[in-house]
């Protein structure tokens, strides 16, 4: 069917606001970042084109040490997938089985997601405070003095200490997604299995989990790309310290940009992050398709 020109114009007009926002704020900056990543630029003056030197330096420089930041991000992603998601799934399975106070639990578990990461980060810095923090006070009061640590200042435990609030905050989010998925199941599916003599665990394993597979895929993608992008909590808790032990790609980028005036190198990290996010999103999609 041939449409009149005015129809096409209308389509364009309807798309216009979204397109303008999207192209100018997302797409154009990415192209510009890609260009800046090929330059040496201190933010003042004009960028000087240097080819792929930044990429070489990024992966070889000891003082930038991107590998440590990537390793931290990967560890965060791994723990999200291996601890946070299974735990969220467990909670979702339990809650969806008509536990007393189901709605209450749901509301409480989801609450940390809503609170600003800055607030949660600030609270945890207080919890981790070596002298006055709740954690060390608790350990001392139960006689575990030797367990007390300078949680955010000791390079051996700092990253672990940062992981706890990050993982903790988003358990509720993944739980909610899974819970919604389970509740969306046709009721007779579960009941038929129950009547066939399956234990609740068997029902979960053979029926519920395969059923909510699409949601698990979304959860895994969010958990992995979220880990790569993670910024707020580390920025508040340690800002990458002590001695860069808790550095993530995002905090490293901000550090290079605004403390070291290295706009070219900062852009290089930005480009690397986009590539990684897309790579993992595709990889996870692929993995979930294969098993079907």
């Amino acid at each position, binding site marked *: 069917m041939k449409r009149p020109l005015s129809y096409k114009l209308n389509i364009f007009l309807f798309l216009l606001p979204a397109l303008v926002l999207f192209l100018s704020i997302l797409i154009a900056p990415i192209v510009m970042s890609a260009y800046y990543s090929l330059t040496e630029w201190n933010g003042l003056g004009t960028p000087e084109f240097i080819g792929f030197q930044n990429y070489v330096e990024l992966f070889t420089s000891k003082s930038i040490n991107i590998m440590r930041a990537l390793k931290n991000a990967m560890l965060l992603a791994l723990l999200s997938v291996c601890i946070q998601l299974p735990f969220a799934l467990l909670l979702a399975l339990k809650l969806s089985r008509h536990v007393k106070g189901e709605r209450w639990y749901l509301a409480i578990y989801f609450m940390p997601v809503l609170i600003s990461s800055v607030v949660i980060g600030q609270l945890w810095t207080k919890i981790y405070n070596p002298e006055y923090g709740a954690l060390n006070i608790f350990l001392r009061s139960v006689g575990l003095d030797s367990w007390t640590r300078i949680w955010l200042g000791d390079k051996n435990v700092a990253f672990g200490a940062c992981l706890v609030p990050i993982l903790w905050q988003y358990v509720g989010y993944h739980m909610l997604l899974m819970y919604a998925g389970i509740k969306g199941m046709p009721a007779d599916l579960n009941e038929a299995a129950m009547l066939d003599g399956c234990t609740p665990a068997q029902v979960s394993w053979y029926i519920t989990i395969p059923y909510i597979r699409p949601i698990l895929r979304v959860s895994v993608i969010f958990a992995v790309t979220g880990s790569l992008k993670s910024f707020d909590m580390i920025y508040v808790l340690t800002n990458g310290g*002590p*001695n*860069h032990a808790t550095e993530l790609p995002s905090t490293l980028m901000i550090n290079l940009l605004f403390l070291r005036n290295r706009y070219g190198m900062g852009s290089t990290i930005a480009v690397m992050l986009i590539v990684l996010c897309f790579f993992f999103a595709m990889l996870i999609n692929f993995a979930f398709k294969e098993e079907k």
Partner: protein
Amino acid sequence: MKKLVALMLTAVMLLGIASAFAEDITLNLWTIAVESDASYETFTNAIADFEAAHPGVKINHEPTQNEQYKIKIKAAMSAGTDLPDVFFTWGMGFLGEFVNAGRVLCLDEYYDAYKDELPENMTANASYDYEGGKLYGVPYTMSEVVLFANMELLASVGYDHIPTTIEEMNECCDKLLEAGITPFGVSGKELWCLSEYLEPLMIKSVGTERLIKMYNGEESWNNPDVIAAVEAFQNMVNKNYFDPNAAALGNDEVKTNFIAGKYAFYQNGSWNCGDIDASENPAKFQAGLFPVLNPDNASLYELIGGPNNTLAVTATTEHKEEAVAAAFELGRAMSDADYKKGANLPCWAPDPEAQVSDLVASVADIAAKAEGMVLFGDNFLSADQANTYLDFIGLAYAGEISPEEFAQGMDDALYNK
């Protein structure tokens, strides 16, 4: 009708002229003196005095917290728009990057009028060689690293003075530790605080001239004297002379702890005099210097510090004359006021009748006796180098790199670059 139009036009024009005359010039001033800062009040007073002396000129003071200020001023400088007329800056490397970008107004032609009050030797850290110009900032206060000591705690282990040799210092620290007192307070979270300990060791091991050459990348860091200084620093760490909680503490907390009597010593900038004097019993605190490490190379009065806090004028200001006048006159007023408050030492010739506390007087006395001065490393170096440098200091403090690796790393970052 024509007459009426003409009349109206004239009226409009007159009104326009009148309003142009009546319009005040507003200068925008950016500083780091946020309300909780000791300098906020002195800035406010200095501005009020300036406005009274220059009718028709208003100053709009916009303070920003230190770390955020660095981002903010760099952002504005990089864009070249939305710049203030007068801005606070640190000397050497920090201001240098803006000067090299052509963003800062050269003050050479205005300096003569103030030469008598602002001695030339105080302008070194705001002087650059850029397109034939020289002076690009008005330094107003200088600071030096001093060793603050809690004499009550020292007395409790039998010392009536700050140890004068490195052996005596170590002995004193051991006794303090035995008595359950932490010798030194430091923030391990803020790396510049660590440099306040390492740099005095460095200058007292290598000497003033060589240290300057090292920062300039003209001499290698890989020499026995640097290594000896880092060794001494790590030795202090290993013997637990520093607060074991240092890694979790910010500088403000450390300072509060020191004033509360938790540490025997606190080595930091002379700007802390004001806070210490404001404590309940300032008489128990003294300011001194860390002992010499290598007497062949350095003497006690070779110091880390120098003129640093500076006001500069942007090249694009619309009101050159007024902005320059504001920079110099506010600088002069701040120099005086901060000195009297114990917030810093003056760059400008101080009011001879100024009444200052004993602590400030002793710090000023140290400055007067100085036999050499090197600016704080992180101010001396450019932003990228300074952060590498601070990282290495952090690593050395944490014992993750050996003194040799420190020296080699600094060479890789600075030498021949």
